[in-house]
């Protein structure tokens, strides 16, 4: 009880400080102006920009975690509640326990960020506060409600665990997500305004004259909302996977190993599935940036940031390969999966070729000497591979391959008993082949048409892939009804390297978030607010990727050190693991799967 009180008091103190920061910043900064007015503050050793950068990035990583995890905590609780499987409820509670400390860390880093911005960028603060003051007050209020909903949700878990009370508890979880999402939407409006202020706002427009709603719902607000919501799920899944891997590696009993093996599987499954959708949200965001300002879009994709996408392709390649690798190793614990083992090497080849094509540079800015050295605007060899036709084809084939990996995993220990099983399998195979042919056809055809027509082809390619994923899943769900099991999944029988794969996934996702944050913020170049408020500080120049990579790595390291501490706390807080409390290593046919391989 004492512990709970202390934790609550600490969080309340942090929240109060944050709220105080929001209310006082204008006065502090204004006082600076009156006092003779420095435009920018400084920070020892690393400088003001890096200080704010690190604070913002680490805050965002924690924020993504505390937004992503509740989403599937609620889904898992609901699954356990309506599906009657208690292990899902335990899983959801374990997720939520991690949230409590992570939430405090989010608030602390939010306060650090606020104070750094107030002291280092006072004029920008004044400007933004004048436009967004109302939304800032609402933000604080929502933050308050979110905190207490989280407390109720976690501490009420065991008390409200039956009948209507359980339903009420689930509602609390949904409410927690609603508050969290609303907080994210508000914060997104501030940062997207800096990227894409309304067109009628110029350098001469006084902040008091900017219409609040047009500033709030600016051009890139909704695309960022969608992109971040999905990315948060991916990130949450990856971090939960890393947590499960950590506990797996340090487990002392078979029951523990089985439980955390299963948890890691669930986290990875969620992360990979959400990841498959993320590129489409990314395309939407990119399109809106181009719609808003061609120059900004070109700076992002073909200007000084063009190499960033090569690094992104490398990271995505690591994600695809590691995610598939984990699935393939995981098939080792599924009786019957060995019949699919020979196919993994072909899938590996397809993925590697896809990554190579995707990571091929194309439209690089070049000066006169470089153009002369290349013999033209495009590289004579890479120019062919690096165009969007080839890249779209590669990424869609990679998505199809990953989905195929998952399908094999799903079907590994199930033997369908429906009469149309063979026909269904043939139809599924045909759907894969047709989708691949459509993707390749439009990829090749894209070389023979103009750019504007070629862009339209990506819709057909994506449509074919999504249709195949949906169609195959639907067929499989019906085909696996009443399926015979080839034996119980041997949860916990995973080699340690599979768990390191989960760590690599989590680190890569986190680094990728840092990189994309740099891209989003960096395309403003030397503007605090794009073409409205110019950055005249000594750090106005947007740094090169190498420098950014060092800062991103530092942010990720700070985040993981803190997360490791949270994991350790998570272990301290729990009771000793009771035999049989985890997933049953030799449970009913199909094992404790989330959905696939459940034999339903």
């Amino acid at each position, binding site marked *: 009880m004492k512990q709970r009180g202390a934790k609550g008091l600490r969080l309340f103190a942090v929240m109060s400080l944050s709220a105080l920061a929001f209310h006082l910043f204008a006065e502090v900064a204004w006082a600076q102006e009156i006092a003779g007015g420095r435009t920018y503050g400084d920070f020892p050793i690393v400088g003001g920009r890096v200080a704010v950068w690190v604070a913002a990035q680490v805050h965002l990583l924690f924020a993504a975690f505390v937004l992503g995890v509740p989403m599937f905590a609620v889904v898992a609780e609901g699954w356990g509640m309506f599906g009657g499987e208690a292990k899902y409820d335990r899983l959801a509670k374990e997720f939520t326990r991690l949230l409590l400390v992570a939430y405090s860390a989010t608030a602390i880093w939010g306060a650090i960020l606020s104070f750094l911005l107030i002291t280092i960028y006072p004029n920008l603060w004044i400007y933004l506060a004048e436009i967004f003051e109302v939304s800032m007050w609402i933000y604080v209020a929502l933050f308050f409600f979110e905190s207490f909903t989280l407390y109720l949700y976690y501490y009420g878990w065991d008390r409200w665990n039956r009948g209507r009370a359980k339903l009420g508890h689930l509602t609390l979880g949904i409410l927690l997500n609603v508050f969290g999402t609303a907080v994210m939407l508000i914060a997104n409006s501030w940062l997207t305004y800096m990227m894409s202020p309304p067109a009628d706002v110029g350098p001469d427009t*006084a902040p008091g004259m900017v219409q609040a709603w047009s500033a709030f719902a600016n051009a890139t607000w909704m695309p960022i909302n969608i992109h971040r919501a999905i990315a948060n799920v991916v990130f949450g899944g990856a971090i939960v996977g890393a947590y499960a891997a950590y506990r797996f590696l340090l487990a002392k009993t078979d029951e523990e190993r089985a439980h955390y093996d299963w948890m890691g599987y669930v986290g990875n499954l969620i992360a990979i599935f959400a990841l498959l959708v993320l590129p489409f949200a990314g395309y939407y965001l990119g399109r809106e940036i181009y719609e808003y300002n061609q120059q900004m879009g070109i*700076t992002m994709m073909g200007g000084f940031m063009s190499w960033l996408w090569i690094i992104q392709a490398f990271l995505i390649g690591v994600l695809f390969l590691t995610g598939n690798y984990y699935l393939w190793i995981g098939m080792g614990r599924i009786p019957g999966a060995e019949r699919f083992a020979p196919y993994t090497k072909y899938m590996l080849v397809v993925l590697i070729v896809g990554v190579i094509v995707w990571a091929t540079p194309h439209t690089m800015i070049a000066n006169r000497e470089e153009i002369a050295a290349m013999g033209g605007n495009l590289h004579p060899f890479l120019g062919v591979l690096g165009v969007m036709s080839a890249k779209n084809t590669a990424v869609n084939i990679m998505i199809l391959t990953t989905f195929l990996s998952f399908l094999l995993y799903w079907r590994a220990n199930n033997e369908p008993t429906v009469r149309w099983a063979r026909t269904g399998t043939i139809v599924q195979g045909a759907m894969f082949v047709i989708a691949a042919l459509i993707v390749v056809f439009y990829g090749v055809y894209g070389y023979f048409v103009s750019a504007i027509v070629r862009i339209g082809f990506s819709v057909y390619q994506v449509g074919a892939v999504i249709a195949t994923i949906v169609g195959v899943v639907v067929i499989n769900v019906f085909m696996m009804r009443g399926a015979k099991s080839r034996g119980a999944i041997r949860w916990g029988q995973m080699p340690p390297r599979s768990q*390191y794969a989960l760590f690599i996934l989590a680190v890569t996702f986190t680094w990728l978030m840092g990189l994309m944050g740099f891209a989003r913020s960096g395309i403003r170049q030397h503007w605090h607010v794009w073409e409205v*408020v110019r950055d005249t500080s000594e750090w106005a120049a947007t740094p090169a990727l190498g420098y950014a990579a060092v800062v991103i790595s530092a942010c990720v390291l700070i985040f993981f050190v803190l997360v490791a501490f949270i994991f350790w706390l998570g272990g301290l807080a729990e009771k000793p693991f009771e035999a049989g409390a985890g997933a049953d290593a030799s449970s009913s046919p199909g094992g404790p799967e989330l959905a696939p391989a459940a034999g339903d």
Partner: protein
Amino acid sequence: MSRTVGLLASFDYVDSAVNAIGELRAAGLKKITAYMPYPDHHIEEALGYDQSPVRVWALVGGLLGAGGGFALTSFTSMDWPLVTGGKPILSIPAYVIISFEMMVLFGVLSAVIGFFINSRLPYIKPMVVYDPEFSAGKFGIYVTVAPDRLDQARSILRGQDPSELREDPAGVGHAPAEVDSGFGGPGDPVGIARASSEFDPESETREDLVGVAQGPSGLDSTSERRTMLFENLKIFGVVIGTLALFTLVANSIPQVQSEVPLALSFGADVSADELMASGEILYNGAGGCLACHGTGTRAPNLLTDHSGTGVIGVRCTNRVGGEDCKAYIYSSMVEPNAYVVEGFDPIMPDMRRSLSNEQIWALVAYLQSLGGEVTVTGADIGASDDGSSTTATAAAAGAPGPASASSDPLEIMTANGCLSCHELDGGGLPMGPSFDGIGARVDADYIRESILDPTAGASEGYEDMSMLMPALFGSQLTAGQLEAVVQFLVSQR
């Protein structure tokens, strides 16, 4: 594809495992995989292993490295011949060091690669049969046999008193650190399950396949702590390694920084060379021109020929009838949609949004210089400076709104648009109280309050107009500027 069955035996002693392998091989059962907690040559010998082929890899790599070193040094000497101290161009003794270093480098690399290839690492295929105890003290023998020889194999293995004997119906077991007899192994065709998945009755000596080695009773608290520490260090190593890899990759690509356009200030007598030099820096850097004009796919490449019309300094004279080169390039930057080149989309922004008048003219001069004559002069800059370049005046100091560093009250009032509504010395409009003689009508406090809060105590006759005055000068002016304006107005008597 033949149907096979696997048998997995676990032994406490290496001798038992060695004997079992020998007997199995003697019986003609040669698809054997051995698992060891540490490398043991007895098992390798029992499996019939010959000498490691890694040494051949090292030899070939070393020879290739040495040969490559000689080839490289010889080629570079011949490609760029420099006579040094009268010695021949191909001077072998000087190449020995490089060749030796290359031999060591390639020999080592080749040995490492050979090690991985011969060890069949990394192991990607799923493990079907494995027991963690094989890494914790026990020895495992996995043999795949045809169903009709199952009893024979089982009998041989039982004869060596295994702690566990298990049947694997699929017959496809593999291990990551596999040592096989050279006849079977991961590359072999995968067998198909034929029987039930029940354990062999013999396996009753063991409760489960996994986890016993690390069970609570297996380790004391000190070794447990050591294990945990080691595991934590490994995890930390994975995280650091991944971060280091990403950082290294990001640092190994071309490093391009987005620069801030430098403020330019030219006098009336500015030279063409000065303009050109500034323009070139802008064009290749902070001006952001290369993002589109450097690739030639989004916009015409200005540095190279376009459709046979020459580089920009040449083709600009013929692009639009009646406009000379200078006028055409300038118009293209401030009214980019007026002259969109055929085949390209109208995506160019009005450069006055991001560049000052001086910067735009510097760019014009640079582009003219690419194949043409520079005709831009200081007079052009002065004549076209109508203040429409927003970056020249506004938002220049990171401060919101029209900030000006000036302390001159008249300049401050002009920059902030005060004379748009107030009259002074025959200028301005009579929408608000005139500034003429204002010092005789009100005091400094009143003026200061009216500037900061226009609705407080509006002047008689201007009550309705006071709503039009924005309440933003408190945040736009510095305290010094505000006071300068107030004192100036007080002095107007």
